[in-house]
């Protein structure tokens, strides 16, 4: 009898419909949709199209045709032909680009590490310095370069100081050497803030116990920085180092904004930008971009693997 009642109750209970998607899943999809679409369109799509373009030729009616047969690598042949004919130009372009690897990885990053440590140790007005360092990172590049060039120009405060020291500030952006230095200094100044924010965030995760233990053991600040802080934030340092390496390809507007008259300071990116600007024959710059990516990607990936071997995986 009891069994019958139970069965009867079971049959009367309304069966819950199986939901195709949970509400939380819909929420996640909606929240991610824009970002994913943006990534697919603006990164995957653009880069994929760029790769395809490097195997096409431009028709004057605004269309592109596939290169076939013996002409398949024509755009790449053109790169080597141009390099052969313009060795000096390509050398200066490569030098200008590789200089940003040195500037980003061996100047900006160590300085940032140093300042981050001070901020992490909560020196006087550390919060203020944090904002000051980060300020250039949230100002558009065109404004930042304009402020910089006016400041060091002949009527700017730094320019007048340089004039008083016998340096002709009016000519700073007119010669290759002085322009290069001014661009590098700008990149260090503008780049520190971004690095400092990431590094201080990484350092703030270091457990207090470890630092207190160091203090009790009487470890000087310098060795605490070298032997404790750097290894424990190594993953952040590695990431920033890789970003620095990629600046060889990603820095392109700074030389143009700061020293438009000195095209020997232009990087690979600047040259690709100008080859693409003002015309529709995008096959040549696309091939140039792919050519440098093929060279650069393994180096960057290899460096990352190498850097990861310096210190063991740390979790805390």
């Amino acid at each position, binding site marked *: 009898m009891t069994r019958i009642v139970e069965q009867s109750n079971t049959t009367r209970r309304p069966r819950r419909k199986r939901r195709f998607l949970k509400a939380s899943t819909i929420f996640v999809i909606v929240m991610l949709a824009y970002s994913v679409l943006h990534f697919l369109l603006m990164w995957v799509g653009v880069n994929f199209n760029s790769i395809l373009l490097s195997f096409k030729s431009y028709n004057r*009616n605004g269309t592109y045709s596939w290169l076939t047969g013996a002409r398949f690598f024509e755009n790449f042949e053109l790169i080597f032909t141009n390099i052969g004919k313009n060795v000096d130009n390509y050398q200066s372009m490569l030098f200008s680009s590789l200089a940003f690897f040195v500037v980003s990885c061996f100047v900006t990053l160590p300085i940032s590490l140093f300042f981050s440590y001070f901020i992490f140790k909560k020196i006087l007005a550390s919060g203020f310095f944090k904002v000051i360092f980060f300020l250039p990172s949230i100002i558009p590049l065109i404004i930042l370069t304009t402020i910089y060039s006016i400041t060091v120009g002949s009527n700017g405060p730094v320019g007048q100081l340089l004039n008083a020291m016998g340096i002709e500030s009016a000519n700073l952006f007119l010669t290759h050497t002085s322009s290069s230095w001014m661009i590098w200094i700008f990149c260090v100044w503008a780049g520190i803030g971004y690095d400092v924010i990431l590094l201080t965030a990484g350092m703030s995760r270091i457990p207090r116990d470890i630092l207190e233990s160091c203090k009790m053991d009487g470890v000087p600040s310098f060795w605490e920085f070298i032997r404790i802080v750097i290894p424990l934030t190594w993953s952040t340092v590695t990431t920033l180092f890789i970003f620095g390496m990629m600046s060889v390809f990603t820095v392109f507007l700074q030389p143009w904004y700061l020293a438009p008259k000195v095209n020997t300071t232009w990087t690979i990116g600047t040259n690709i930008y100008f080859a693409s600007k003002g015309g*529709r024959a995008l096959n040549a710059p696309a091939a140039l971009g792919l050519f440098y990516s093929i060279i650069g990607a393994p180096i960057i990936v290899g460096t990352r693997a190498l850097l990861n071997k310096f210190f063991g995986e740390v979790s805390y």
Partner: protein
Amino acid sequence: MNKKIFILPLVATSLFLSLTACDRTPKRGENELYITVYDGGYGTDWIDQVSKDYEAKTGVKVVWTADQSILDRMDSELENPESDIYMSHDIRWQEYAEAGQLEVLDDLYESEVEGTGKTFKQRLCQGAEEVSKLEDGHYYKVCYTQGAGGLVYNKTMFDQNNWSVPQTYDQLVALCETINNAHIPLDDPGQYVKPIGWSGADREYYWDYILFEWWAQLGGAEAINQYKAYLGDDGKYSTGYQVYNPSTNHEEFIQAYQYWRDLIVANPTFSNTKPQDAKLFNVNSMFASGQVAMIPYAQWAKYEIQQNSGIQFNFDIAMMKTPKVTGAKGDFNYNVGFGDSMVIPSNIPDSSKENAKDFLRYLAGKEACKTFVDKARGAFLAFDYSIVDLGDLLNDTYIASVYSKLTTCTNVNVCSMNPVAYINSASIMPWIGNTYYYSKAFAAPTNDAYSATTVGNNIYTTAQNGWASWVRLAGFGPND
């Protein structure tokens, strides 16, 4: 359940708004016309007035927009046009026309312009017709303005000091010395009026307007025309780099550069202090406040200098004919901005196309031509002004001087119809690779890298090295 109620409408609304945001095309009425003009040195008073006049005459409502970023958006604009007419410099109209994105204007060119007794084609100024059609023989654009460039001077200052407008290069050099020696004091102690103010920081290319006229004086219009054909001595595209040969085809260009060096680099006191670092705003302020007597500029000088500096002229200005160098073959005017264009997209309704063509036809009429000169303060549309009565506008010394330059000099321009040139327009130009030497030469007067000989050789070498790829990018073979 509640969440579902909220999320689904939210998603639907977002999608709907996103999709509606994509459609920026105005819903055009048959009696409406949409125009986008580049917001530059001609200002917007002229388009506002002409639009009102046209609306009063035809009943077609004109909605105009002035936009400085139009060139950056031109590709997408022509895909999905917001306007029926675009007016700007540097529109790559040949490429758009070849891609079928521009309306063919043959019927406009053959139609009669009301009140003139002439067809639209006959109303064009000298040289405008041949740079408005492609090899297929069809017209796709209308030239926007006919420019005049040169040294603009403070006429009142000249009159007060009895300085004559120089007719020759030597007189120009002598005038600069006279102005310096006059030591006309300024408000700042120890400062006095300088002969020439120029901006090396962002407008050094304004010197082109004088240098190109010296080039034309030395080589004649044929030297310019031979250059802008960009064909080799054998008539081929593939050997077009030969036009840059400093020993033959480009010789006069390099000579003109030498004249500039002799005037400016050899005489640093003729210029404002540190011109290589001077911004346009500073130099315009100097000229507007009477600190310099002359300034290299183009037809938009009167509007732009006052607008840019915020100082209204309390003196008369004028543009001089470029002083003649030894052996000059006549007076020449370099048509600054002759490549500026007015185009109609092909992807708009037929009724809008007709309205747009009618508006361009109206612009070629006497009334609109005069209004443009008046409101743009001395700039001229690219139409024949010989039948336009400018009346009391010619009492304005600046307008009269520009008019005189346009009508009494031989007009030349560097607009090329060679595909190698227009496909590679960022690289191929008199200063190849868009590399200027004015500021650098002034900053380093003894540096041989900026001497006329070295610059000439560098330009030629750059052209030789880059030509094969530029020819290839234009769709030609190595032996074409």
